[in-house]
Structure formats: structure tokens, C-alpha cells
């Protein structure tokens, strides 16, 4: 009986009026973290950019260590995804919001929503909404996002590179005058798998100390982002 009902629902799905256009508003509610350019994508159910507990792909690593979206965008395009890349036109500062508009009118298989961006200052931290089943009823839906660690780079918490495989934290202009310098390093090995980020340690020593991250500005408690989906 149950199976019959399910089959009917699937058969009828393309005929039903689906939510084909929706807004995705991303808010940065943190005290002092910046989001690198956001990747917002509607995609088929069988696509996912990462699995917690598993090693990150090189494409995810490039996003998490340096904010580079090229690899993930190529993967999603190959899967026929509907993409809005970089709706904030650059970094999304703490307290700010950006809105992506997606239209899946010609791509009815794109029923799942994924949002990712790197968190700065972190070594390989990122925010993620992974494969949300997009609501079809018109309305406004709010989601809380957690911070993940890609597990690809040691959380040394010192200034460095955004290139995959290179140590340290990339430092774009807004963070340059805020971060400390000459930290000796907090941690020297990567974890090897994607997991919930343990947060920044930081310190209160601008010159020296273990970390270049500022403990009074750059720590967080989850959620690290809010996403509001408005189905029209």
C-alpha cells in the first residue's frame, strides 16, 4: 500500500506545480568572521559536495582553504545544477546579508539546495547547507548552518596561504589590520576527514603568541550562518 502511494507521488511530481523560483538569503550573524564568495546551488538529489567522516575532495579543499569555487562549480555544472555564484560580490562581512535567486523552471530535477563558503579567519573552515530538500509550498523558511572543518589543513591559526596544500590562513584586506602576527602555530597536523569545526582558539597577543587569530573577535558558537529560503 505504502509503495503504491509512493509510486503515484513520483509519477505525478512533474505534473504538479513546483516551486521553480526562490530566493536564498544568507546572513552572517557572527561576531567577527567573514564569508568568502558564496556558492548557492540547486541540484539533483544524488549530488553532494562532501560527506562528514570522509576525506574532502580536492574541489572542496580548494574552497575550504582559499575560497576558490572553480572546482565545485565545474562539478555542479556537470551535474546540471542551477547555480548562483558569489551573490555578495566578494566577502560577506559580519552582520551583513546577501540574496541569491534561483530559477529551476527548466531543471525540475534540481530539488536540493546546497550553500557553501569558507570562513575567515580559519585554516580550512567552511559553512555548509548540504542537500536541503527545497520546500515547494510558498512561504519563508529559515535554517541554521553549522561550521565544518575540511580536515585538509592543520589549524595552525597563523597568517599564510589560501592555496590548497599550503599552510596558514589567507588574509584579505579587511582582516589584515585585525589579525595578529608572528604566531608560533597552534596545531601542526590535519585531521583527514570532514567534521564539525571545533572553533578557533585564538589568543590576545597581537604580536607573537601561538595564534594570529583574535580570541575576543573570531571565536563562534554554532550556528555560524542563517539561510532564509523564500518560495514564491
Amino acid at each position, binding site marked *: 500500500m505504502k509503495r503504491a502511494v509512493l509510486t503515484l507521488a513520483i509519477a505525478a511530481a512533474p505534473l504538479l506545480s513546483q516551486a521553480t523560483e526562490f530566493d536564498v538569503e544568507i*546572513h552572517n*550573524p*557572527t*561576531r*567577527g568572521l567573514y564569508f568568502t564568495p558564496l556558492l548557492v546551488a540547486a541540484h539533483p538529489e544524488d549530488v553532494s559536495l562532501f560527506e562528514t567522516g570522509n576525506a574532502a575532495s580536492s574541489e572542496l579543499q580548494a574552497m575550504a582553504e582559499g575560497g576558490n569555487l572553480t572546482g565545485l562549480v565545474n562539478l555542479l555544472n556537470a551535474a546540471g545544477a542551477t547555480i548562483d555564484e558569489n551573490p555578495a560580490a566578494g566577502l560577506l562581512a*559580519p*552582520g*551583513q*546579508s546577501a540574496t541569491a535567486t534561483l530559477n529551476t523552471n527548466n531543471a525540475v530535477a534540481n530539488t536540493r539546495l546546497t550553500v557553501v563558503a569558507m570562513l575567515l579567519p580559519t585554516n580550512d573552515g567552511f559553512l555548509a547547507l548540504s542537500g536541503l530538500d527545497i520546500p515547494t509550498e510558498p512561504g519563508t523558511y529559515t535554517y*541554521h548552518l553549522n561550521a565544518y572543518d575540511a580536515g585538509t589543513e592543520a589549524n595552525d591559526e597563523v597568517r599564510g596561504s589560501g592555496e590548497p596544500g599550503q599552510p596558514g590562513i589567507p588574509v584579505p584586506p579587511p582582516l589584515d589590520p585585525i589579525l595578529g602576527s608572528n604566531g608560533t602555530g597552534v596545531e601542526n597536523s590535519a585531521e583527514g576527514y570532514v567534521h564539525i569545526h571545533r572553533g578557533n582558539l585564538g*589568543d*590576545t597577543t597581537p604580536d607573537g603568541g601561538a595564534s594570529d587569530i583574535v*580570541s*575576543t*573577535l573570531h*571565536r*563562534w*558558537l*554554532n*550556528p*555560524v550562518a*542563517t539561510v532564509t529560503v523564500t518560495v514564491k
Partner: protein
Amino acid sequence: MFTRKHILMLPTLAILTAGCDSDNGALLGTAQEVQYQVTITNLTAGQPLSPAAIVVHRNGWRAFALGETASVALEKLAESGDNSDFISAAGADLDVVATSSGHDVIAPGASEQIVASGRASSTSGLQLSWASMPVNTNDGLAAINGIDIGGLAVGQSATHLAISYDAGTEANTESADTVPGPAASGLAEGFNPVRNDVRNAVYIHPGVVTQADGLSTSTLGESHRWDNPIARIVIQRLQ
């Protein structure tokens, strides 16, 4: 204030209904008592929660919005734990159906039950908000912000896990002269109208650094840290 406004409005509505038998009159006639019991459990190790402020409202009223400036009444609650201005300001709003204050501080691990009652023509679209201050902070808030309760039938209940916010109104020095809770001197000033946080807007609280973790100005110890969720809220519709 809220009550007086309604008394003033009643004669006008009565005249209208007598004259034209409008739908408004029918709606007013069906307004009935609604009552919600809110059970708050403090999930922290070392953050007593200030007396709760409960507001039952429609979506025309909001306690706060992320990224937007806190009202002075909310600032006072978040900096000193005094909820009186916040509750009276809410009570004066026509989109607010009921307000209620907790009797006391909710200690770590403890719970309190608070009942909020009011009159509404329909429960459709009703929301509930709660705010308390984790008192060993500068301007922290433990809150739920406009949870939908319109679907609750009488006797039904729903559980929510609350997170902590920062009012964005006071610098997070964690110092003995600015933290009003028992972790500090007890002589802290509490509310101060100066707004000197990293930005004048509500955000999600990053937690406290504490002296144990290297913030020399902090009067707080490691046990004053917490994680989200900060509290559990059970809302039961009684009437």
C-alpha cells in the same frame, strides 16, 4: 497601556457593528482566551538566566532581528537582566496578545514554568518569543525569536532548543565592573546607554573567552562558558 488602548477602542467598534453588521464585529465577538505554559530549562553549567520575558504575538512584532539594532528595552534586558521595560514596551503593541514575566532567576540546571494568557480572535499566525540574560556576560541573550505556535491545539505541546545572542550594545570585556552576574563583584553597573560593541546590531553570541583562556580583563572562569543550545523550551497550549 495596552489595556487602556483597548478600552478606548471598544466604543468605536461597537458603534460600527451596530451600524453595518461588519465582519470586524463578528471577529471581536469570537475573541477568546488563549493560554500557553512555557517551561524553560537552563542547559548551561554556570550561566544563571535572568527572569524570563515571554511574549505571545503576531508577526507585526519582533523581539529583535539579526543584523539590526537592538531596542533600548532589549539592551536593558541584555545588559542588566531587568525585563520590565521590554515587557511593558511589548505589552503596548497592538500585535502583542500576551506578555508574562518569570518570577526569578533560573539557575543552571533548573527549570521554571511560566503561563502567558491573553485574548485572540484566532490562534492562526500566533508566535511566541522568550528572552533572558545569561547574567555572567556583558550583553548576552538567551532567546527564541518568533516561534510559530499557531498550530498548537489545546493540550498539545512543542519543544524548542534555544541559542544565545549578543545584543551588540556593550563591549564584551567580561570585566568585574560590567558583568552583573554572581561571577563578578556584584557591583557592576548593569545597563549603560553607551553602545560600544564591535557593531551596534544583534548577532549570535560567540561565547565567553574567560580569564582561564587568556583574557586578562575577564572576571569569568572556564565554567562560565557554554555552548548552543543554551536552553530548552517546552510550550504547551492550555487554553
